[in-house]
């Protein structure tokens, strides 16, 4: 579509209007030109005109000292491109006669020149008029298209033509007021492609900040565009000028994802700490940095310990992956697995991790439980639940429902004796029975039915246990027990 931004000059209009050849531009680079082959011969006759049309030189002559344009990386690229062009001999003899001098606005340097003088299929457009691609032949063309080859379009028409991928001249919108009018029409057309183009083409960088602020849509498109082209520096500058500080912070922070080296990533995160995040996010980013810093230390120490071959746990359970860049809870799991007994003073101590990152009791409990169960350290598991009351008796307490405890233990293939203990602690009788059935804890089932005084269920269950087994004997004893007042 940008190829169609063909610049027409007033005195050429007659030509365009009368000629059977419609608008055409070609690329002025030799190799590209040669590619256009026979189909281009048909329009050879108008080459010179087109050549004149290319007022790239004017761009060179423009003095843009008046306006500071330095910070826009676009202009850097642009200049390089135009220099290259003028250094070369034109591919065709150039006729300079009667080329009207387009008086450029000196109010600023327009980005529009970036997009001029390129090829594409302006050519094919002109022959088949295929730029208006429509689904169905029944579609009629809007009346505005009949004015295709008149260059004096209103801002509205200009935007409309851009939407159709047609030739337009943005040069005529010189005053700031005109440009802003054009921009506003493009905004109301809701076509991001056009909004971005108009923004880039017509607005000088210095007025950009000021004017875009009152045109949020164009601004968002411009920001989106800068994001896509990864023009981070300009983007940050723009956001800063607009006072959108949280966006800047997040955008900057996002960069860390593309840094692979852990030390560089850590340093980068450190540099993010001073960014204007919201207070909550700020705390999270601080944690992120602290975590990575710590992971780097743990990783280095543990890798050495593993290589040294002297620490038993690394020999028995070699580490499968590095801990770097893992989430906090995964790190805690790792610490519970390899560094469970360490005193609170070390970086890798689970208690220290818990404290530093304010991990909730439940999260800590679940993670430690899973890690110790994985190691089949049933004593540690047991100790997690044990709390002493003031009489010195121990009882099992859990911040987590015991059915969930059973679930975690079972996932770590705990033996039935261990499971049984925790299944028995499940409060809800029905849930307890279903878990006991699942894990074949006969005693619990039998005892629960006994406690529920449910004779029928107990009878039924007798059919499910093995003949002559301990369980069957136990059931029979209970059924014969005259002390129990069965409810059924």
């Amino acid at each position, binding site marked *: 579509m940008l190829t169609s931004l063909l610049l027409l000059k007033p005195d050429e209009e007659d030509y365009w209007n009368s000629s059977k050849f419609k608008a055409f531009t070609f690329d002025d680079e030799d190799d590209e030109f040669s590619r256009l082959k026979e189909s281009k011969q048909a329009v050879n006759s108008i080459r010179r005109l087109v050549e004149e049309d290319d007022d790239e030189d004017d761009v060179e002559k423009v003095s843009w000292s008046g306006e500071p344009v330095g910070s826009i990386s676009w202009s850097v690229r642009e200049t390089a491109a135009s220099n290259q062009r003028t250094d070369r001999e034109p591919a065709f003899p150039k006729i300079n006669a009667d080329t009207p001098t387009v008086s450029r606005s000196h109010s600023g340097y327009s980005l529009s020149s970036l997009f001029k003088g390129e090829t594409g299929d302006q050519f094919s457009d002109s022959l088949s008029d295929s730029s208006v*691609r429509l689904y169905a032949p029944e579609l009629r063309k809007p009346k505005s298209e009949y004015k295709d080859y008149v260059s004096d379009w209103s801002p509205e028409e200009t935007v409309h033509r851009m939407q159709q991928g047609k030739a337009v001249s943005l040069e005529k919108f010189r005053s700031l007021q005109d440009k802003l009018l054009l921009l506003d029409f493009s905004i109301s057309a809701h076509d991001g492609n056009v909004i971005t183009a108009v923004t880039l083409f017509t607005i000088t960088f210095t007025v950009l900040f000021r004017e875009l602020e009152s045109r949020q849509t164009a601004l968002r498109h411009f920001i989106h565009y800068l994001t896509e082209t990864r023009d981070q520096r300009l983007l940050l500058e723009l956001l800063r000028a607009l006072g959108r500080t949280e966006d800047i912070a997040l955008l900057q922070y996002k960069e860390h994802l593309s840094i692979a080296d852990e030390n560089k990533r850590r340093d980068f995160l450190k540099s993010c700490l001073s960014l204007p995040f919201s207070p909550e996010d700020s705390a999270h980013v601080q*944690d992120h940095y602290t975590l990575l810093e710590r992971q780097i230390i743990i990783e280095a120490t543990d890798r050495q310990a593993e290589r040294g071959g002297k620490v038993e746990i690394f020999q028995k359970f070699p580490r499968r992956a590095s801990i770097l860049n893992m989430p906090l809870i995964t790190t805690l799991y790792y610490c519970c697995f390899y560094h469970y007994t360490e005193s609170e003073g070390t970086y890798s101590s689970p208690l220290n991790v818990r404290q530093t990152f304010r*991990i909730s009791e439940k999260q800590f409990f679940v993670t430690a439980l899973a890690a110790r169960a994985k190691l089949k350290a049933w004593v540690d598991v047991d100790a997690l639940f044990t709390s002493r009351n003031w009489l010195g008796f121990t009882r099992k307490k859990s911040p987590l429902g015991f059915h969930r405890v059973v679930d975690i233990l079972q996932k770590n293939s705990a033996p039935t004796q261990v499971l049984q203990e925790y299944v028995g602690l499940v409060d809800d009788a029905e849930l307890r029975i279903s878990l006991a059935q699942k894990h074949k804890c006969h005693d619990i089932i039998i005892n629960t039915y006994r406690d529920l005084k449910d004779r029928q269920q107990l009878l039924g269950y007798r059919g499910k246990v093995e003949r002559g087994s301990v369980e069957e004997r136990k059931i029979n004893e209970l059924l014969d027990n005259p002390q129990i007042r069965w409810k059924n």
Partner: protein
Amino acid sequence: MAAHLSYGRVNLNILREAARKELREFLDKCSGSKAIVWDEYLTGPFGLIAQYSLLKEHEVEKMFTLKSGRLPSADVKNIIFFVRPRLELMDIIAENVFSEDKLHSSREFHILFVPRRSMLCEQRLKEQGVLGSFINIDEYILDLIPYDGDLLSMEYESAFRECYLENDQTSLYHTAKGLMTLQALYGTIPQIYGKGECARHVANMMLRMKREFAGSQNQILPVFDTLLLLDRNVDLLTPLATQLTYEGLIDEIYGINNGYVKLPPEKFAQKKQGEASKDLPTEPKKLQLNSAEELYAEIRDKNFNAVGAALSKKAKIISAAFEERHNAKTVGEIKQFVSQLPHMQAARSSLANHTSIAELIKDITSTNLYLSLVSASEAFFDNLTVEQEFMTGVDTDKVNTYIEDCIAQKDPLIKILRLVCMQSVCNNGLKQKVFDYYKREILQTYGYEHILTLNNLEKGGLLKPQTSSRNNYPTIRKTLKLWMEDANEQNPNDISYVYSGYAPLSIRLTQVLARPGWRSIEEVLKMLPGPHFEERQQLPAGLHKKRQQGENRTTLVFFLGGVTYAEIAALRFLSQMEDSGMEYIIATTKLINGTTWIKSLMDRPECQTP
């Protein structure tokens, strides 16, 4: 091939044919043999328009996937890139062109942008120094793709993200363009209703585009009576809920992509008698799902709990039909039987497929907690219970234990986000304390980089801290009757059957609009975001429909930002209700479910699971 598109109230095959014609014309423009290099994302949507055979007829000999590096060798005259207008794809194309040039200077390059050309992309190609290498740079406007007899989709995945996060309204422009094309083929739609910011924009653009056509009146008798434009952000709740229709569940569990689903192969293995099944297929089974399959059309919109009965009924009919062979005595009768055999075989294999799918789903959804202890079904049941609590307004202002447990056991992040967002939506924002708690738990468990995703969800309005103390969700729920206690899953009498109790807000709005009209719910409409409006488009004299007694009206409902299969099922249900007097055709930017939707709002969804 696409006969099912023409069975509906509106013959959508016309649209498909127009799109095919367009494609053929472009291919013929690049004369000689050709190879197509595909932006992989596009192959799905194109599959709904054309098969390979069409391309082959137009001298497409090879097809490649767009990848960086050198293009595979192919002895063709033209290389055509079919791509979306994305900058990163332009870089790959440039790389391809550069490495190709030295080898075969005689090849011709073309680009077909779908759905629109982009100045930025062409600028990028120019910067890379390859723009001049292309003979044709063209665009293929694939706005509205016929998906089924009553369904159109733009297959524009990022529409919601672009509109509500990035405030890029380009998709709305495409929507308006698509609607103009539709009106050119099916007549001007006299009445336009809408709710939401985006709906307003689309309507404005349509009206402006129509003004530009002024002077040349559309002479086609209108097929649609009404157009209803609905913003997705008017109803953020519905996509978050787990869909409970057959098609909805297939999508929730396995994901339907461009009309296809990939299923685990085990249940589809053809076991021959006496043969040990040692070589079970390992490739997923790929099935196309649309109304061309009679059985599927019958069962897809049913609540899953009613599918079993429907399948067994069908099984009896098919068995009976096969039994007929015993009654065929005369040559004529046998001949007749044989002639019906292909149809019966197809019906049987269709039945086999859907029985297998239903089994797969049943394994996951089976809702009896105490009898079936498969943990997947427990999870499904628990999840559903929590969703229903939220939707009925139970304890939405507290930290939910189930969500907490799910985080503790590291369930997939998207599942967590769906639930947390749902709680937020049903509480008109979470209490600051609850919001902070969830946020911290999520970041600690899944990684701090998800700050970015959580911020996106906040911008999109799905997850936010409560700003006013007033929660208006209960009012909305009661006025629109979003929760029906006695939803009948087997023989539904209300749309709430699609979520076993929850009636999708978006569809209630549609239903109320048809009768008694939106004036009856002004209060609620004001609570929902964005303006609501009504516009009329003048019809030329003589095109006013003379409606037959009892003839249904037709409404096109356009969901801006996506629609779920369950919502579609609810609209189909309304179309079929005898006294509704309204038939619905559905259009959308993309078919979504809670998972694909949340994913589209995430930054770097690929690293979502630790």
